[in-house]
């Protein structure tokens, strides 16, 4: 299988805190990989490192074969931050056109794409509403649209479903599957254990390290547990069968 993202021995420290502590991870092309871990385990740092936003202290980060940070590669990635990072006074359309143009789309193309992606996340009717008038859920969809507007090959989503109601969460996942079917590689972080089961593979992260990575059914089978929460605890305490193998 083709590798989209490869991290080896990545260390990132903030002062005394080792946010990433010798982390290894491979992400395959066209897969949906879930990053599962409690708050503060290093998920956001990992995503930011992949996005080329942080310089690492040690190790190597390669995306589509190139070392990050790299502007050419950055243009092929879409990054959805935890908070809805949009300009409050601009309308949804203004925001989308702006971000499209930042990624190098010509103005007319950016306008066309803005309409396309709002269709994709069912936001067509909110196109000309200033972002400050949007409710939490619609805001999050607009946020996703902003990460999609330039048609990225790789999508980095940092806790996209935080504070989102169940109906909308299901909707968001439908969008992700559709994008994935069209060829996008998607990395999505979450601290909600059950949500991880929706991903093709799950990387469990604790204290800046990957403690296991596999398909969720495999993770359950290897630990002999019934749910992801128990599986996570089992890997965390080193009780799982073939835990070392999971490091790969």
């Amino acid at each position: 299988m083709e590798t989209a993202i490869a991290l080896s021995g990545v260390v990132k420290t903030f002062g005394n805190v080792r946010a990433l502590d010798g982390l290894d991870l491979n992400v395959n092309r066209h897969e949906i990989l879930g990053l599962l871990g409690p708050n503060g385990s290093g998920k956001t740092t990992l995503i930011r490192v992949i996005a080329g936003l942080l310089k690492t202290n040690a190790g190597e980060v390669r995306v589509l074969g190139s070392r990050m940070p790299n502007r050419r590669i950055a243009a092929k990635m879409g990054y959805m931050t935890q908070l809805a990072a949009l300009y409050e006074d601009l309308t949804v359309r203004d925001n989308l056109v702006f971000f499209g143009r930042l990624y190098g789309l010509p103005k007319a193309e950016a306008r066309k794409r803005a309409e396309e992606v709002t269709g994709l996340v069912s936001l067509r009717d909110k196109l000309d509403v200033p972002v400050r008038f949007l409710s939490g859920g619609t805001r999050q969809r607009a946020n996703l649209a902003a990460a999609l507007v330039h048609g990225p090959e790789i999508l980095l989503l940092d806790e996209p479903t935080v504070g989102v109601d169940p109906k909308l969460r299901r909707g968001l996942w439908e969008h992700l599957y559709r994008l994935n079917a069209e060829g996008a590689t998607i990395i999505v972080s979450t601290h909600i254990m059950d949500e991880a089961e929706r991903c093709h593979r799950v990387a469990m992260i604790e204290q800046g390290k990957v403690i296991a990575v596999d398909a969720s059914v495999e993770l359950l089978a290897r630990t002999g547990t019934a749910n992801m929460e128990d599986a996570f605890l089992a890997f965390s305490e080193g009780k799982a069968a073939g835990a070392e193998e999971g490091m790969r």
Partner: protein
Amino acid sequence: MNMGRVFAIAGRIVTQFRRDKRTLGLIVLVPLLVMALMGYLISDDKEPIKAAFIQLDQGMESPLGRISLGDQLYRELGKQKGLTLVTYHTVAEAEKDVRHGKIQGAILIPAGLTNHLLSQEGGELSLIVKGTDQGTERIIQMSLAKALPVLARNKPGGAAGQSQIGIKITALLVKKSLTNIDYYAPVLIVGFAFFLIFLLTSISFLRERSSGTMERLSASPVTRVEVMLGYLLGFLVFALIQTLVVLGYAVWVLHAEVAGSILLVLAVLTLMVIGVVNLGITLSFLARNELQVIQFIPIIIVPQIFLGGLIWPLETLHPAFRYLAQFFPITHAVAALREIMLGGAGFADIQGRFYALLAFAVLMILFGAGTLRKQQG
């Protein structure tokens, strides 16, 4: 009403500010700084300004000895605290130094003044000034006003009054007689532009960080230079609109003088705005919220207004302050605008100011770029 709740709110406010050391420091330091500066600026304890004294009057022989009113005036003016006299021999030489700002004015005692005055014909002495610096001109005029009555009293033949001694003022650079409006219009234009652009840039950059859009910009292929140029162009539009409004009001409603080129005025302001946009970017990085941006105002703007020669002439300030003022962009912008608007100066006349603003802009761009680099961890 429950006083417990009232005290809970009051207590919370006190605790919040106790935790916010920067605000606490400013509450104490800002008034002290402002009062210390004000106290100094309005005191008489200032540096004297320099003026040329050109004596062309030979005086007059009398039974009591030679009388020279020029010499008497020289002595009287010498007693004035605000003024230092430098003797010049020719008018041309003095005019040249006035033009270049080496001296702030020249007092000319014309030939035959003593004769004319003593023979009750009346006479006139000449004051030559640049014309673009009201502050220093006022000091020379006030010194003359104090010295002349003494002269009249000393005149043999009784108190004929000083009315006989007139002062003819020649402004070298300025054609019409200037009003306060003319003099302060450049201050308003520069002050508004600096203040508005500083506030707008630092707050919108702060929002860019706190709303997470900065993160999104950094993740995109956009470069630092592109971000800086974009900000610059965006804010330049507003700076220019504002400048045109302020300038338009000053010219058409207040009838302020614009002797020189409007384009040169805009060029000077553009250069300053480039610096200020980057200053805003840099300082927004040091602020956590809007309140802390506002707190930069007394530190960034007040000293420039007080010590930049806007109200109190630079020449009267302590040498240390004068030196400091050379690092203030507002000093150079206002001086350049005064020379252009009041004195009709061209680029050659204000190059020094222009390059000082250029240096400010370049320095701030470097700081701004450094800030953005830091932003990217």
